[in-house]
């Protein structure tokens, strides 16, 4: 990366004073991630660039087979920045949890309901076990939205019940699942386990 590019990556003017405040108020620690991901846009496999609030600068946010790996990495980095700021141990992505969370995101789209139950009545405990996960599931977070994974995490951080799951001190492994509808609507599932 040449110096001018690097500089560009750091220039991320917020779109309005309102969003600027929001970005600041939110998770100051996210800034580093956002800058990194802005740079990551130079990689063809990268997800769309984010602005200072964590929103996609393109408006729509296509999650594809090519960029899903980076989306998940950005999610786990975001979660860990937040956890580390609170003095908590970091978490790592778990393949079995990713598989079960992906399946649940698809199921929610089919059910048309943003909730933690599968069409068969299953919970994240059942789904993780079926996927071969050997640990204990602590909780699961859901968002039906057009927002990015960074915004979804930010939203979960704003409500006590969802924040408590994200900041569970026992958490060591997570799975981020996503299903995108043709309208670009996203169904995020974040399973948190130890």
């Amino acid at each position, binding site marked *: 990366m040449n110096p001018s590019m690097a500089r560009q990556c750091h220039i991320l003017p917020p779109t309005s004073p309102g969003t600027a405040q929001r970005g600041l108020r939110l998770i100051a620690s996210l800034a580093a991630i956002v800058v990194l991901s802005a740079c990551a846009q130079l990689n063809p496999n990268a997800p769309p660039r984010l602005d200072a609030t964590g*929103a*996609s600068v393109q*408006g*729509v*946010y296509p999650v594809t087979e090519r960029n899903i790996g980076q989306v998940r990495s950005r999610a786990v980095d975001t979660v860990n920045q937040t956890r580390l700021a609170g003095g908590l141990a970091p978490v790592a992505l778990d393949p079995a949890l990713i598989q079960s969370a992906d399946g649940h995101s698809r199921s929610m789209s089919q059910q048309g*309901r*943003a*909730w*933690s*139950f599968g069409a068969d*009545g299953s*919970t*994240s*405990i059942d789904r993780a076990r079926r996927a071969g996960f050997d640990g*204990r*599931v*602590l*909780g*699961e*977070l*859901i*968002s*039906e*939205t*057009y*927002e990015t994974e960074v915004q*979804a995490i930010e*939203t*979960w951080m704003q*409500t006590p*019940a*969802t924040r*408590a*799951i994200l900041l569970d001190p026992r958490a060591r492994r997570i799975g981020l699942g996503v299903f995108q509808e043709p*309208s*670009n*609507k996203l169904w995020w599932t974040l399973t948190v386990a130890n």
Partner: protein
Amino acid sequence: MPFPRTRRYVLKLGAATMASLACPALVYAQDTTVIAPADSTGSPSRHNTASFRVHHWEDHFPNLQKGAILCDLESRALHYWPEDDSQHLIFPSSVPRSEELTQTGLTEIVLKRRNPTWIPTPNMRALDPTLPESIGPGPDNPMGSRALNLGWQYYRIHGIDDIAKIGRPASSGCVGLFNDHVEHLFELVEVGTQVRFL
């Protein structure tokens, strides 16, 4: 699913007031409409979020005498553990539609009723004087096929007349389950089974 769609439509069309009746309640809250980014109206409806927390009975009950039911109103889920701790059942539930209607704490099952008759509480009647005196057993009964009366007056764990209420803030304080779930639970619990609303 316990009911054919047609009944739901009838309820919604003809008897909006009827649907509103119950402990499971007046107008059940719809999920918000998720707004696409192009439509930047500043509406807060940019996401529907939900969460599910895994529970262990030891964190909420001193023992499992006569079994224990935990109603997690935040996760909109009912947990049940029998006295011998041989299983952990989890069912999706409806939850109270407002803070004022929400009771939390420890109580117990005081009465089990099959095919209950539903009678509006004085409070419901005050809110809607057009409510019928009562609704007998049947598909339009807001308490569905089973009711478990709790130690708190008017609070119940019961079945449902409209499956759309499950997983949503739709009740006047009670916890509603799919009828097949409440029928299953009904056979496992007894008067004295511990109940905590969280």
